[in-house]
Protein backbone atom coordinates (compact mmCIF):
# COMPACT_ATOMS: atom_id res chain seq x y z
CA UNK A 1 0.00 0.00 0.00
CA UNK A 2 2.75 2.44 -0.96
CA UNK A 3 0.00 4.51 -2.61
CA UNK A 4 -1.48 5.25 0.77
CA UNK A 5 1.35 7.74 1.25
CA UNK A 6 0.29 9.62 -1.88
CA UNK A 7 -3.20 9.94 -0.49
CA UNK A 8 -1.88 11.17 2.85
CA UNK A 9 0.26 13.78 1.10
CA UNK A 10 -2.64 15.00 -0.95
CA UNK A 11 -4.81 15.14 2.12
CA UNK A 12 -2.16 17.22 3.92
CA UNK A 13 -1.91 19.53 0.91
CA UNK A 14 -5.66 20.16 0.94
CA UNK A 15 -5.55 20.90 4.65
CA UNK A 16 -2.73 23.37 4.04
CA UNK A 17 -4.71 25.16 1.37
CA UNK A 18 -7.72 25.27 3.64
CA UNK A 19 -5.71 27.01 6.33
CA UNK A 20 -4.30 29.45 3.81
CA UNK A 21 -7.81 30.06 2.56
CA UNK A 22 -8.98 30.90 6.06
CA UNK A 23 -5.93 32.94 7.09
CA UNK A 24 -5.33 35.09 4.04
CA UNK A 25 -8.82 35.58 2.83
CA UNK A 26 -7.70 34.44 -0.64
CA UNK A 27 -10.39 32.38 -2.25
CA UNK A 28 -8.88 28.95 -2.86
CA UNK A 29 -12.17 27.07 -2.68
CA UNK A 30 -12.06 26.17 -6.38
CA UNK A 31 -8.61 24.65 -6.06
CA UNK A 32 -9.55 22.85 -2.83
CA UNK A 33 -12.62 21.39 -4.43
CA UNK A 34 -10.62 20.22 -7.43
CA UNK A 35 -8.05 18.49 -5.22
CA UNK A 36 -10.73 16.96 -3.05
CA UNK A 37 -12.36 15.42 -6.08
CA UNK A 38 -9.04 14.07 -7.18
CA UNK A 39 -8.40 12.68 -3.70
CA UNK A 40 -11.77 10.98 -3.66
CA UNK A 41 -11.18 9.44 -7.10
CA UNK A 42 -7.74 8.16 -6.06
CA UNK A 43 -9.18 6.76 -2.88
CA UNK A 44 -11.91 4.92 -4.78
CA UNK A 45 -9.33 3.53 -7.15
CA UNK A 46 -7.01 2.41 -4.38
CA UNK A 47 -9.48 0.97 -1.92
CA UNK A 48 -12.20 -0.61 -3.98
CA UNK A 49 -11.11 -3.98 -5.35
CA UNK A 50 -8.59 -4.45 -2.57
CA UNK A 51 -6.66 -7.68 -2.84
CA UNK A 52 -6.93 -9.99 0.13
CA UNK A 53 -3.33 -9.27 1.06
CA UNK A 54 -4.04 -5.53 1.01
CA UNK A 55 -6.88 -6.13 3.43
CA UNK A 56 -4.47 -8.00 5.70
CA UNK A 57 -2.32 -4.88 5.71
CA UNK A 58 -5.31 -2.69 6.62
CA UNK A 59 -6.24 -5.12 9.42
CA UNK A 60 -2.71 -4.68 10.77
CA UNK A 61 -2.44 -0.97 10.04
CA UNK A 62 -0.63 0.84 12.88
CA UNK A 63 -3.38 3.45 13.03
CA UNK A 64 -6.17 0.88 13.18
CA UNK A 65 -8.51 1.42 16.14
CA UNK A 66 -7.99 -1.11 18.92
CA UNK A 67 -10.34 -2.71 21.44
CA UNK A 68 -10.06 0.03 24.07
CA UNK A 69 -10.78 2.67 21.40
CA UNK A 70 -14.11 0.96 20.65
CA UNK A 71 -14.81 0.35 24.33
CA UNK A 72 -14.32 4.04 25.14
CA UNK A 73 -16.30 5.19 22.13
CA UNK A 74 -19.24 2.77 22.24
CA UNK A 75 -19.74 1.81 25.88
CA UNK A 76 -20.48 3.82 29.01
CA UNK A 77 -18.57 3.66 32.27
CA UNK A 78 -16.15 0.85 31.43
CA UNK A 79 -15.18 -0.71 34.74
CA UNK A 80 -12.10 -2.80 34.13
CA UNK A 81 -11.51 -6.06 35.96
CA UNK A 82 -7.94 -7.27 36.32
CA UNK A 83 -6.04 -10.46 36.87
CA UNK A 84 -6.42 -14.21 36.53
CA UNK A 85 -6.47 -14.77 40.35
CA UNK A 86 -3.53 -17.11 39.95
CA UNK A 87 -0.50 -15.35 38.63
CA UNK A 88 -0.78 -11.91 37.06
CA UNK A 89 -2.77 -9.45 34.97
CA UNK A 90 -2.10 -10.05 31.29
CA UNK A 91 -2.71 -6.70 29.65
CA UNK A 92 -2.81 -8.09 26.13
CA UNK A 93 -6.40 -8.82 27.06
CA UNK A 94 -8.73 -6.37 28.76
CA UNK A 95 -12.08 -7.11 30.33
CA UNK A 96 -14.69 -5.51 32.48
CA UNK A 97 -18.26 -4.36 32.83
CA UNK A 98 -19.87 -1.49 31.00
CA UNK A 99 -23.30 -0.09 30.26
CA UNK A 100 -24.58 -0.42 26.74
CA UNK A 101 -28.07 0.25 25.42
CA UNK A 102 -29.64 0.11 28.86
CA UNK A 103 -27.89 -3.10 29.89
CA UNK A 104 -24.82 -4.11 31.84
CA UNK A 105 -22.57 -6.13 29.61
CA UNK A 106 -19.21 -7.81 30.01
CA UNK A 107 -16.71 -6.90 27.33
CA UNK A 108 -13.53 -8.87 26.63
CA UNK A 109 -11.04 -7.43 24.17
CA UNK A 110 -7.60 -8.18 22.84
CA UNK A 111 -5.54 -5.04 23.08
CA UNK A 112 -2.50 -4.16 20.99
CA UNK A 113 -0.16 -1.38 22.02
CA UNK A 114 0.31 1.74 19.96
CA UNK A 115 3.90 2.46 21.00
CA UNK A 116 6.90 0.27 21.71
CA UNK A 117 6.51 1.25 25.34
CA UNK A 118 2.87 0.20 25.41
CA UNK A 119 3.59 -3.02 23.53
CA UNK A 120 5.98 -4.03 26.30
CA UNK A 121 2.93 -4.52 28.48
CA UNK A 122 0.41 -5.42 25.75
CA UNK A 123 2.64 -7.97 23.97
CA UNK A 124 1.29 -6.76 20.62
CA UNK A 125 -2.10 -8.15 21.59
CA UNK A 126 -0.80 -11.70 22.04
CA UNK A 127 -2.35 -13.15 25.18
CA UNK A 128 -0.55 -15.51 27.44
CA UNK A 129 -2.37 -18.26 29.37
CA UNK A 130 -2.93 -15.73 32.16
CA UNK A 131 -4.90 -13.57 29.72
CA UNK A 132 -7.12 -16.42 28.60
CA UNK A 133 -7.69 -17.41 32.21
CA UNK A 134 -8.70 -13.84 33.01
CA UNK A 135 -11.12 -14.07 30.09
CA UNK A 136 -12.57 -17.28 31.45
CA UNK A 137 -13.09 -15.57 34.77
CA UNK A 138 -14.99 -12.85 32.96
CA UNK A 139 -17.08 -15.39 31.02
CA UNK A 140 -18.09 -17.19 34.20
CA UNK A 141 -18.70 -13.87 35.94
CA UNK A 142 -21.04 -12.78 33.15
CA UNK A 143 -22.84 -16.12 33.29
CA UNK A 144 -23.43 -15.76 37.01
CA UNK A 145 -25.17 -12.42 36.64
CA UNK A 146 -26.82 -12.84 33.27
CA UNK A 147 -24.72 -10.12 31.61
CA UNK A 148 -24.41 -10.49 27.83
CA UNK A 149 -20.83 -10.89 26.59
CA UNK A 150 -19.24 -8.92 23.78
CA UNK A 151 -15.76 -9.94 22.66
CA UNK A 152 -13.50 -7.77 20.52
CA UNK A 153 -10.96 -9.90 18.68
CA UNK A 154 -7.67 -8.41 17.52
CA UNK A 155 -4.58 -10.55 17.90
CA UNK A 156 -1.81 -11.88 15.67
CA UNK A 157 -2.21 -15.07 17.72
CA UNK A 158 -1.70 -16.45 21.19
CA UNK A 159 1.69 -15.60 22.67
CA UNK A 160 4.30 -18.07 21.43
CA UNK A 161 6.94 -18.53 24.09
CA UNK A 162 8.48 -20.83 26.67
CA UNK A 163 6.57 -19.41 29.66
CA UNK A 164 3.27 -19.61 27.78
CA UNK A 165 3.88 -23.27 26.95
CA UNK A 166 4.93 -24.00 30.53
CA UNK A 167 1.63 -22.56 31.74
CA UNK A 168 -0.20 -24.67 29.10
CA UNK A 169 -1.60 -22.04 26.78
CA UNK A 170 -3.30 -24.75 24.72
CA UNK A 171 -5.38 -25.87 27.67
CA UNK A 172 -6.19 -22.25 28.55
CA UNK A 173 -7.62 -21.74 25.06
CA UNK A 174 -9.52 -25.05 25.19
CA UNK A 175 -11.06 -24.11 28.53
CA UNK A 176 -12.17 -20.74 27.19
CA UNK A 177 -13.90 -22.50 24.33
CA UNK A 178 -15.63 -24.84 26.74
CA UNK A 179 -16.73 -21.92 28.94
CA UNK A 180 -18.05 -19.95 25.96
CA UNK A 181 -19.88 -22.97 24.58
CA UNK A 182 -21.87 -23.28 27.79
CA UNK A 183 -22.27 -19.81 29.26
CA UNK A 184 -26.02 -19.13 29.70
CA UNK A 185 -26.02 -15.55 28.36
CA UNK A 186 -26.12 -13.99 24.88
CA UNK A 187 -22.68 -13.71 23.31
CA UNK A 188 -21.49 -11.64 20.36
CA UNK A 189 -17.95 -11.83 19.00
CA UNK A 190 -16.57 -9.10 16.76
CA UNK A 191 -13.32 -9.43 14.83
CA UNK A 192 -12.13 -5.82 14.73
CA UNK A 193 -8.64 -6.35 13.33
CA UNK A 194 -6.58 -9.51 13.21
CA UNK A 195 -8.31 -12.78 14.01
CA UNK A 196 -5.15 -14.83 14.40
CA UNK A 197 -5.80 -18.56 14.73
CA UNK A 198 -6.51 -20.33 18.03
CA UNK A 199 -5.61 -17.23 20.00
CA UNK A 200 -8.49 -15.41 18.32
CA UNK A 201 -10.93 -18.30 18.33
CA UNK A 202 -10.51 -18.49 22.12
CA UNK A 203 -12.85 -15.44 22.21
CA UNK A 204 -14.71 -16.34 19.02
CA UNK A 205 -17.22 -19.01 19.99
CA UNK A 206 -20.43 -16.95 20.19
CA UNK A 207 -24.11 -16.75 19.27
CA UNK A 208 -23.30 -14.12 16.65
CA UNK A 209 -19.97 -13.52 14.97
CA UNK A 210 -19.43 -10.18 13.25
CA UNK A 211 -16.44 -8.81 11.39
CA UNK A 212 -15.40 -5.33 10.42
CA UNK A 213 -15.04 -5.11 6.67
CA UNK A 214 -11.24 -5.04 6.67
CA UNK A 215 -10.71 -7.44 9.54
CA UNK A 216 -9.24 -10.86 8.85
CA UNK A 217 -9.83 -14.21 10.52
CA UNK A 218 -7.68 -17.19 9.72
CA UNK A 219 -6.35 -20.55 10.81
CA UNK A 220 -2.81 -19.29 10.08
CA UNK A 221 -1.15 -16.07 8.94
CA UNK A 222 -0.49 -15.73 5.20
CA UNK A 223 3.21 -15.63 6.10
CA UNK A 224 2.93 -18.92 7.99
CA UNK A 225 0.95 -20.59 5.21
CA UNK A 226 3.42 -19.39 2.57
CA UNK A 227 6.31 -20.84 4.54
CA UNK A 228 4.67 -24.16 5.36
CA UNK A 229 2.56 -24.92 2.30
CA UNK A 230 4.33 -23.04 -0.49
CA UNK A 231 7.82 -23.36 1.03
CA UNK A 232 8.31 -19.88 -0.33
CA UNK A 233 7.98 -16.82 1.89
CA UNK A 234 7.25 -14.57 -1.09
CA UNK A 235 3.90 -16.33 -1.72
CA UNK A 236 2.03 -14.42 1.00
CA UNK A 237 -0.35 -12.86 -1.55
CA UNK A 238 -1.31 -16.28 -2.90
CA UNK A 239 -1.64 -17.62 0.62
CA UNK A 240 -3.87 -14.71 1.71
CA UNK A 241 -6.08 -15.37 -1.31
CA UNK A 242 -6.27 -19.13 -0.80
CA UNK A 243 -7.10 -18.91 2.92
CA UNK A 244 -10.34 -16.96 2.34
CA UNK A 245 -9.55 -14.90 5.40
CA UNK A 246 -11.41 -11.65 4.62
CA UNK A 247 -14.79 -10.69 6.03
CA UNK A 248 -16.61 -10.81 2.65
CA UNK A 249 -15.23 -14.30 1.90
CA UNK A 250 -16.14 -15.63 5.33
CA UNK A 251 -19.64 -14.20 5.04
CA UNK A 252 -20.03 -15.95 1.68
CA UNK A 253 -18.87 -19.20 3.25
CA UNK A 254 -21.50 -18.82 5.97
CA UNK A 255 -18.92 -18.80 8.75
CA UNK A 256 -19.80 -15.34 10.10
CA UNK A 257 -23.13 -13.54 10.41
CA UNK A 258 -22.51 -9.98 9.26
CA UNK A 259 -19.90 -7.55 8.01
CA UNK A 260 -19.74 -4.01 9.41
CA UNK A 261 -18.73 -1.67 6.56
CA UNK A 262 -15.69 0.53 7.00
CA UNK A 263 -14.90 3.86 5.37
CA UNK A 264 -12.66 3.73 2.32
CA UNK A 265 -9.13 3.09 3.45
CA UNK A 266 -10.09 1.47 6.73
CA UNK A 267 -11.67 2.12 10.13
CA UNK A 268 -8.96 4.60 11.14
CA UNK A 269 -10.03 7.00 8.34
CA UNK A 270 -13.33 7.71 10.10
CA UNK A 271 -13.21 6.03 13.47
CA UNK A 272 -16.30 7.57 15.04
CA UNK A 273 -18.44 6.54 12.10
CA UNK A 274 -17.07 2.97 12.24
CA UNK A 275 -17.65 2.78 15.99
CA UNK A 276 -21.19 4.12 15.59
CA UNK A 277 -21.95 1.53 12.91
CA UNK A 278 -20.52 -1.24 15.05
CA UNK A 279 -22.49 -0.02 18.07
CA UNK A 280 -25.69 -0.03 16.01
CA UNK A 281 -25.04 -3.59 14.84
CA UNK A 282 -24.25 -4.72 18.39
CA UNK A 283 -27.45 -3.13 19.73
CA UNK A 284 -29.48 -4.96 17.15
CA UNK A 285 -27.83 -8.33 17.79
CA UNK A 286 -28.03 -8.03 21.59
CA UNK A 287 -31.66 -6.95 21.43
CA UNK A 288 -32.65 -9.89 19.25
CA UNK A 289 -30.66 -12.36 21.37
CA UNK A 290 -32.25 -10.97 24.55
CA UNK A 291 -35.63 -12.12 23.25
CA UNK A 292 -34.55 -15.74 23.08
CA UNK A 293 -35.12 -18.01 26.06
CA UNK A 294 -31.72 -18.89 27.51
CA UNK A 295 -32.09 -22.66 27.04
CA UNK A 296 -33.06 -22.16 23.41
CA UNK A 297 -30.14 -19.80 23.01
CA UNK A 298 -27.66 -22.38 24.32
CA UNK A 299 -29.26 -25.07 22.17
CA UNK A 300 -28.95 -22.90 19.06
CA UNK A 301 -25.34 -22.12 19.88
CA UNK A 302 -24.67 -25.82 20.32
CA UNK A 303 -26.27 -26.62 16.95
CA UNK A 304 -24.30 -23.89 15.23
CA UNK A 305 -20.97 -25.32 16.30
CA UNK A 306 -21.99 -28.97 16.20
CA UNK A 307 -22.75 -28.51 12.51
CA UNK A 308 -19.83 -26.38 11.40
CA UNK A 309 -17.67 -27.92 8.69
CA UNK A 310 -18.04 -29.14 5.15
CA UNK A 311 -17.63 -32.70 3.99
CA UNK A 312 -19.37 -35.04 1.62
CA UNK A 313 -21.26 -38.21 2.43
CA UNK A 314 -19.86 -41.40 0.97
CA UNK A 315 -22.06 -44.21 -0.29
CA UNK A 316 -22.58 -46.55 2.69
CA UNK A 317 -20.52 -49.43 1.23
CA UNK A 318 -17.58 -47.33 0.00
Amino acid at each position, binding site marked *: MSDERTLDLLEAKIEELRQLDAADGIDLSGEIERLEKKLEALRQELYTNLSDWERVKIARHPKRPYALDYIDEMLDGFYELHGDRMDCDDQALVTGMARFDGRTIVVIGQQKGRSTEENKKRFFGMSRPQGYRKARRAIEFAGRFGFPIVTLIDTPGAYPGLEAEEANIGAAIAENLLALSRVPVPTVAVVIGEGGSGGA*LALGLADRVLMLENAIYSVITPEGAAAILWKDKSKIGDAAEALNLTAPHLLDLGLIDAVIPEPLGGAHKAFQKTAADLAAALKQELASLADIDVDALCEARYDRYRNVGRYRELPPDA
Partner: protein
Amino acid sequence: MAIFREKEYLRVHVDKEPDESLWMKCKSCGELVFKRRVRDNSNICPECGEYFFLTATERIEMLVDEGSFVDITKPIASDDPLGFVDRRPYVARIDEAQAKTGLVDAIVVGAATIDGTPAVLAVMDFRFIGGSMGSVVGEQICHGIESAIERRHPFILVASSGGARLQEGLFSLLQMAKTVSVRGRLAEAGLPFVSIMTYPTSGGVQASIASLGDVIIAERGAMIGFAGRRVIKDTIAQELPEHFQTDAFAFEHGAIDRVVAREEMRAELAKLLGFFVGVR
Protein backbone atom coordinates in the same frame (compact mmCIF):
# COMPACT_ATOMS: atom_id res chain seq x y z
CA MET B 1 30.65 -71.58 -18.30
CA ALA B 2 28.59 -72.85 -15.45
CA ILE B 3 30.83 -71.21 -12.88
CA PHE B 4 30.74 -67.90 -14.71
CA ARG B 5 26.99 -67.89 -14.74
CA GLU B 6 26.83 -68.56 -11.06
CA LYS B 7 29.18 -65.66 -10.37
CA GLU B 8 27.09 -63.30 -12.41
CA TYR B 9 23.99 -64.44 -10.58
CA LEU B 10 25.59 -63.78 -7.22
CA ARG B 11 26.84 -60.38 -8.18
CA VAL B 12 23.36 -59.16 -9.01
CA HIS B 13 22.31 -59.95 -5.47
CA VAL B 14 25.28 -58.38 -3.78
CA ASP B 15 24.79 -55.03 -5.50
CA LYS B 16 21.10 -54.83 -4.71
CA GLU B 17 19.89 -52.44 -2.02
CA PRO B 18 18.25 -54.09 0.99
CA ASP B 19 14.62 -54.86 0.21
CA GLU B 20 12.73 -51.77 1.32
CA SER B 21 9.61 -53.70 2.06
CA LEU B 22 11.40 -55.81 4.66
CA TRP B 23 13.90 -53.43 6.25
CA MET B 24 13.77 -49.94 7.64
CA LYS B 25 16.34 -47.52 8.96
CA CYS B 26 15.73 -46.18 12.46
CA LYS B 27 15.87 -42.39 12.28
CA SER B 28 17.13 -42.28 15.84
CA CYS B 29 20.01 -44.76 15.96
CA GLY B 30 20.52 -45.21 12.22
CA GLU B 31 20.47 -49.01 12.48
CA LEU B 32 18.89 -51.03 9.73
CA VAL B 33 16.20 -53.06 11.44
CA PHE B 34 13.94 -55.84 10.24
CA LYS B 35 10.45 -54.39 9.88
CA ARG B 36 8.72 -57.43 11.26
CA ARG B 37 10.82 -57.30 14.38
CA VAL B 38 9.82 -53.68 14.80
CA ARG B 39 6.16 -54.48 14.35
CA ASP B 40 6.26 -57.34 16.83
CA ASN B 41 7.88 -54.92 19.29
CA SER B 42 4.92 -52.38 19.35
CA ASN B 43 6.66 -50.37 16.61
CA ILE B 44 9.57 -49.65 18.90
CA CYS B 45 13.12 -49.88 17.54
CA PRO B 46 14.61 -53.13 18.90
CA GLU B 47 18.07 -51.54 18.78
CA CYS B 48 17.58 -48.22 20.60
CA GLY B 49 14.01 -48.12 21.93
CA GLU B 50 12.85 -45.25 19.66
CA TYR B 51 9.08 -45.23 19.01
CA PHE B 52 7.97 -45.25 15.40
CA PHE B 53 4.65 -43.86 14.30
CA LEU B 54 1.81 -46.27 14.66
CA THR B 55 -0.90 -46.28 12.04
CA ALA B 56 -4.41 -45.95 13.46
CA THR B 57 -5.00 -49.63 12.74
CA GLU B 58 -1.80 -50.73 14.49
CA ARG B 59 -2.66 -48.49 17.43
CA ILE B 60 -6.11 -49.99 17.76
CA GLU B 61 -4.71 -53.54 17.57
CA MET B 62 -2.35 -52.66 20.40
CA LEU B 63 -5.02 -51.20 22.65
CA VAL B 64 -8.17 -53.29 22.39
CA ASP B 65 -9.19 -56.89 23.05
CA GLU B 66 -8.56 -59.07 20.04
CA GLY B 67 -11.55 -59.30 17.74
CA SER B 68 -13.58 -56.77 19.75
CA PHE B 69 -13.13 -53.74 17.49
CA VAL B 70 -16.09 -52.61 15.40
CA ASP B 71 -15.30 -49.79 13.00
CA ILE B 72 -18.01 -47.13 13.29
CA THR B 73 -16.18 -44.40 11.35
CA LYS B 74 -18.78 -42.21 9.65
CA PRO B 75 -18.81 -42.60 5.83
CA ILE B 76 -17.75 -39.06 4.98
CA ALA B 77 -14.84 -37.52 3.09
CA SER B 78 -13.23 -34.13 2.69
CA ASP B 79 -15.01 -31.75 0.35
CA ASP B 80 -12.26 -29.14 -0.21
CA PRO B 81 -14.54 -26.24 0.87
CA LEU B 82 -12.11 -23.52 -0.26
CA GLY B 83 -10.91 -25.10 -3.51
CA PHE B 84 -7.47 -24.80 -1.95
CA VAL B 85 -4.35 -24.97 -4.09
CA ASP B 86 -0.85 -24.32 -2.79
CA ARG B 87 2.04 -25.99 -4.57
CA ARG B 88 -0.47 -28.73 -5.22
CA PRO B 89 -4.25 -28.93 -5.00
CA TYR B 90 -5.65 -30.03 -1.66
CA VAL B 91 -7.70 -32.71 -3.44
CA ALA B 92 -4.46 -34.22 -4.80
CA ARG B 93 -2.99 -34.28 -1.29
CA ILE B 94 -6.14 -35.99 -0.04
CA ASP B 95 -6.03 -38.58 -2.84
CA GLU B 96 -2.39 -39.29 -2.14
CA ALA B 97 -2.97 -39.60 1.61
CA GLN B 98 -5.90 -41.93 1.01
CA ALA B 99 -3.82 -44.10 -1.30
CA LYS B 100 -0.91 -44.15 1.14
CA THR B 101 -2.92 -44.98 4.25
CA GLY B 102 -5.99 -46.78 2.98
CA LEU B 103 -7.98 -44.40 5.20
CA VAL B 104 -10.57 -41.84 4.09
CA ASP B 105 -9.13 -39.23 6.46
CA ALA B 106 -6.80 -38.90 9.43
CA ILE B 107 -8.92 -40.74 12.00
CA VAL B 108 -10.64 -44.03 12.71
CA VAL B 109 -13.58 -44.34 15.12
CA GLY B 110 -14.73 -47.58 16.63
CA ALA B 111 -16.23 -49.44 19.55
CA ALA B 112 -14.25 -52.13 21.35
CA THR B 113 -13.50 -53.65 24.70
CA ILE B 114 -10.33 -53.14 26.66
CA ASP B 115 -9.77 -55.98 29.07
CA GLY B 116 -13.50 -56.55 28.87
CA THR B 117 -14.54 -52.94 29.48
CA PRO B 118 -16.37 -51.42 26.51
CA ALA B 119 -15.29 -48.02 25.19
CA VAL B 120 -15.53 -45.88 22.08
CA LEU B 121 -12.19 -44.88 20.56
CA ALA B 122 -11.19 -42.22 18.06
CA VAL B 123 -7.66 -42.81 16.86
CA MET B 124 -5.76 -40.34 14.73
CA ASP B 125 -3.24 -41.30 12.06
CA PHE B 126 -0.33 -38.93 11.58
CA ARG B 127 0.49 -40.26 8.10
CA PHE B 128 -2.65 -38.61 6.75
CA ILE B 129 -1.59 -34.96 6.19
CA GLY B 130 0.10 -34.82 9.57
CA GLY B 131 -3.01 -36.03 11.39
CA SER B 132 -4.43 -32.58 10.83
CA MET B 133 -7.97 -31.73 11.91
CA GLY B 134 -10.27 -30.48 9.18
CA SER B 135 -14.03 -30.84 8.80
CA VAL B 136 -13.92 -34.64 8.56
CA VAL B 137 -11.69 -35.21 11.59
CA GLY B 138 -13.77 -32.77 13.64
CA GLU B 139 -16.98 -34.51 12.64
CA GLN B 140 -15.55 -37.97 13.38
CA ILE B 141 -14.45 -36.90 16.87
CA CYS B 142 -17.97 -35.56 17.54
CA HIS B 143 -19.45 -38.74 16.11
CA GLY B 144 -17.23 -40.76 18.44
CA ILE B 145 -18.29 -38.74 21.48
CA GLU B 146 -21.95 -39.01 20.54
CA SER B 147 -21.60 -42.77 20.01
CA ALA B 148 -20.06 -43.01 23.47
CA ILE B 149 -23.01 -41.09 24.93
CA GLU B 150 -25.49 -43.28 23.07
CA ARG B 151 -23.86 -46.49 24.30
CA ARG B 152 -23.03 -45.00 27.69
CA HIS B 153 -19.38 -45.94 27.28
CA PRO B 154 -16.22 -44.01 28.07
CA PHE B 155 -14.63 -42.08 25.21
CA ILE B 156 -10.94 -42.41 24.35
CA LEU B 157 -9.13 -40.11 21.93
CA VAL B 158 -5.66 -41.03 20.75
CA ALA B 159 -4.25 -37.80 19.35
CA SER B 160 -1.46 -37.72 16.82
CA SER B 161 -1.72 -34.42 15.06
CA GLY B 162 0.19 -31.35 14.02
CA GLY B 163 -2.96 -29.25 14.52
CA ALA B 164 -5.61 -27.72 12.29
CA ARG B 165 -5.69 -28.63 8.60
CA LEU B 166 -4.56 -25.43 6.93
CA GLN B 167 -6.15 -26.23 3.57
CA GLU B 168 -9.65 -25.88 5.01
CA GLY B 169 -8.95 -22.46 6.49
CA LEU B 170 -11.42 -21.22 9.07
CA PHE B 171 -13.52 -24.39 8.68
CA SER B 172 -10.61 -26.21 10.33
CA LEU B 173 -10.13 -23.64 13.07
CA LEU B 174 -13.79 -23.91 13.96
CA GLN B 175 -13.46 -27.68 14.46
CA MET B 176 -11.83 -26.72 17.75
CA ALA B 177 -15.07 -25.02 18.82
CA LYS B 178 -17.09 -27.91 17.46
CA THR B 179 -15.28 -30.73 19.24
CA VAL B 180 -15.16 -28.78 22.51
CA SER B 181 -18.91 -28.09 22.34
CA VAL B 182 -19.68 -31.79 21.95
CA ARG B 183 -17.19 -32.68 24.69
CA GLY B 184 -19.42 -30.63 27.02
CA ARG B 185 -22.28 -33.06 26.34
CA LEU B 186 -20.13 -36.01 27.36
CA ALA B 187 -19.51 -34.29 30.69
CA GLU B 188 -23.25 -33.72 31.11
CA ALA B 189 -23.81 -37.41 30.47
CA GLY B 190 -21.35 -38.20 33.28
CA LEU B 191 -19.10 -40.27 31.04
CA PRO B 192 -15.32 -40.21 31.25
CA PHE B 193 -13.05 -38.92 28.50
CA VAL B 194 -9.52 -40.28 28.41
CA SER B 195 -7.21 -38.26 26.20
CA ILE B 196 -4.05 -40.02 25.07
CA MET B 197 -1.43 -37.69 23.66
CA THR B 198 1.20 -39.19 21.40
CA TYR B 199 3.93 -37.78 19.18
CA PRO B 200 2.85 -35.09 18.29
CA THR B 201 -0.17 -33.49 19.94
CA SER B 202 0.05 -29.86 19.01
CA GLY B 203 -1.59 -26.71 17.66
CA GLY B 204 -5.36 -26.67 17.33
CA VAL B 205 -5.83 -30.23 18.55
CA GLN B 206 -3.83 -29.63 21.73
CA ALA B 207 -5.64 -26.28 22.20
CA SER B 208 -9.07 -27.91 22.09
CA ILE B 209 -10.39 -31.42 22.52
CA ALA B 210 -7.14 -33.19 23.47
CA SER B 211 -6.53 -30.92 26.47
CA LEU B 212 -10.01 -31.47 27.90
CA GLY B 213 -9.65 -35.10 28.95
CA ASP B 214 -10.86 -36.00 32.43
CA VAL B 215 -7.62 -37.92 32.50
CA ILE B 216 -4.76 -37.09 30.13
CA ILE B 217 -2.09 -39.68 29.47
CA ALA B 218 0.98 -39.05 27.37
CA GLU B 219 2.64 -41.88 25.54
CA ARG B 220 6.33 -41.93 26.38
CA GLY B 221 8.15 -39.87 23.75
CA ALA B 222 5.13 -37.68 23.02
CA MET B 223 5.50 -34.09 21.88
CA ILE B 224 2.89 -31.87 23.51
CA GLY B 225 2.36 -28.16 23.04
CA PHE B 226 0.58 -25.36 21.27
CA ALA B 227 3.16 -23.27 19.40
CA GLY B 228 6.11 -25.22 18.05
CA ARG B 229 9.79 -24.41 18.25
CA ARG B 230 9.87 -22.78 14.83
CA VAL B 231 6.97 -20.41 15.51
CA ILE B 232 8.53 -19.33 18.80
CA LYS B 233 11.95 -18.81 17.23
CA ASP B 234 10.47 -16.86 14.31
CA THR B 235 8.25 -14.69 16.49
CA ILE B 236 10.22 -13.90 19.64
CA ALA B 237 13.60 -15.56 18.92
CA GLN B 238 13.67 -17.23 22.33
CA GLU B 239 16.14 -19.93 23.33
CA LEU B 240 14.29 -23.09 24.28
CA PRO B 241 15.40 -25.89 26.60
CA GLU B 242 16.24 -29.23 25.05
CA HIS B 243 13.32 -31.02 26.70
CA PHE B 244 10.84 -28.34 25.50
CA GLN B 245 7.39 -29.84 24.86
CA THR B 246 8.49 -33.38 25.63
CA ASP B 247 6.43 -35.72 27.77
CA ALA B 248 8.70 -34.84 30.71
CA PHE B 249 8.17 -31.10 30.12
CA ALA B 250 4.39 -31.52 29.98
CA PHE B 251 4.43 -33.65 33.13
CA GLU B 252 6.70 -31.27 35.01
CA HIS B 253 4.37 -28.36 34.28
CA GLY B 254 1.17 -30.19 35.12
CA ALA B 255 -0.28 -30.49 31.63
CA ILE B 256 -0.84 -34.25 31.86
CA ASP B 257 -1.65 -36.83 34.53
CA ARG B 258 0.75 -39.57 33.61
CA VAL B 259 3.39 -40.74 31.15
CA VAL B 260 3.01 -44.33 30.01
CA ALA B 261 5.20 -46.55 27.84
CA ARG B 262 3.62 -47.72 24.61
CA GLU B 263 3.77 -51.38 25.56
CA GLU B 264 2.04 -50.61 28.88
CA MET B 265 -0.77 -48.48 27.45
CA ARG B 266 -3.37 -51.20 27.13
CA ALA B 267 -2.92 -52.37 30.72
CA GLU B 268 -2.99 -48.73 31.82
CA LEU B 269 -6.30 -48.11 30.06
CA ALA B 270 -7.80 -51.30 31.46
CA LYS B 271 -6.85 -50.22 34.96
CA LEU B 272 -8.07 -46.67 34.44
CA LEU B 273 -11.42 -47.62 32.90
CA GLY B 274 -11.97 -50.05 35.74
CA PHE B 275 -12.46 -47.14 38.13
CA PHE B 276 -15.42 -45.94 36.12
CA VAL B 277 -17.24 -49.24 35.76
CA GLY B 278 -20.66 -48.93 37.35
CA VAL B 279 -20.47 -45.14 37.67
CA ARG B 280 -23.99 -43.77 37.13
